[in-house]
């Protein structure tokens, strides 16, 4: 009695190949056609070409540009150096001007102007005391007046004077002999 048996080999099943085997002649042809060496040389050549291109770019564009700029800058600086005297002159002027600016020039008020200004404020009445208080430009005058109406008149006149500011009456004193009023007025200058 004949028995029908089926054996399954996993190994054989896995090794199943759809591609037909290549003959030795075909392999020879493939090997002959292989271009690996050509590509290898192309790779090396491309590296050399890249280096050459970069070097050429540097030599033709970059380095001359740097040289030309350095040359231009050196020429400009040379010309500036030749004009150093005028730069020093300007520097000296600015330095001295800045030093003088605040503490000095801002306080340049002439005595004559102060006296004249005070006389303008007093409206022709006699001033018996003038005093400029230290560094504050605060001027104090004592005006001798005949009556109280003149006090108001002088004060009003001082308020409309454009050359002074911060006007205030410090004191009003009555004198008996001779009968007079001393008005003590303080103000700051607006002359600058």
């Amino acid at each position: 009695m004949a028995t029908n048996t089926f054996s399954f080999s996993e190994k054989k099943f896995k090794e199943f190949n759809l591609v037909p085997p290549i003959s030795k002649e075909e392999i020879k042809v493939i090997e002959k056609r292989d271009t690996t060496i050509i590509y290898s040389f192309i790779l090396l050549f491309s590296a050399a070409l890249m280096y050459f291109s970069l070097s050429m770019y540097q030599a033709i564009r970059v380095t001359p540009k740097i040289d030309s700029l350095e040359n231009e800058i050196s020429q400009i600086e040379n010309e500036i150096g030749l004009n150093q005297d005028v730069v020093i002159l300007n520097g000296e002027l600015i330095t001295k001007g800045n030093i003088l600016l605040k503490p000095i020039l801002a306080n340049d008020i002439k005595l004559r102007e102060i006296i004249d200004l005070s006389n303008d404020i007093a409206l022709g009445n006699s001033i018996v005391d003038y005093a400029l208080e230290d560094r504050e430009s605060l001027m104090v005058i004592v005006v001798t007046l005949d009556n109280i109406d003149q006090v108001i008149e002088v004060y009003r006149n001082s308020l409309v004077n454009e050359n002074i500011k911060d006007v205030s009456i410090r004191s009003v004193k009555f004198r008996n002999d001779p009968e007079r009023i001393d008005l003590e007025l303080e103000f700051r200058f607006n002359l600058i």
Partner: protein
Amino acid sequence: MDQIITLEERKKKEASKSKKYAKFFKFYVVPIISVIIFMVSILLIIIPKFNEITTDTTAISSLESERSKASNKLGYVRALRSNQIELQQNLDFLDSIAPSGSTEVIEFSERLSSLADRYSLEIETQRANDLLSASSINQQGSNLADTSVTIQEIPVSFRMSGTFRNIDSFITELSRLDDFVILRDFTLEGIEEEGRSLWTFELTFSKYQFREDSIEATGRYLKISPSSTLDSSILEYIDRKQL
């Protein structure tokens, strides 16, 4: 005969072996070596070269900016050169306000004394106060950090007496003097004495002197940009005074 066969076989074997080596060399050694050489040349030659060019390009842009700044500076320097006469006049004016000579104060006090004599004013006291330190002036004024250029303030006080008319004339003459002084304080007070009016006049003014270490000062002046200009308030002041 057997020996010949063996020799041929050996030759064939050697030929096939060398063919095998040649194949190995062609398909593995040459490509691997060329890839290695390519990579090495990229890393050691091409990338550094590229970096060098990039650095140079950056240097170009920084040089261009430097050139542009230098050109601007040159433009300002040329403008200064064309205004040199005006600059010199302004500087001369500032120097006249605060001269460098140390005898200026004494000379001015002497001029003041002779002026008082001319108007029959009696000088009761006259004194030069202590110098105010240069640094204190700087703190008040310019906030300059260095002391290569400083200014000294020399306060001088006078007390004199006379008639109002004479004092008034003295004040008028005082205002006409070329000397630059700053009035610090004054008192003009009238006193009735033996039926006549006598006035006393107390005056404190300050005179200024520049002090500069010429070498350090020159260095400082050079550091100031040629594009800087004098403060407009000073220019206005100079214009007003020079009219």
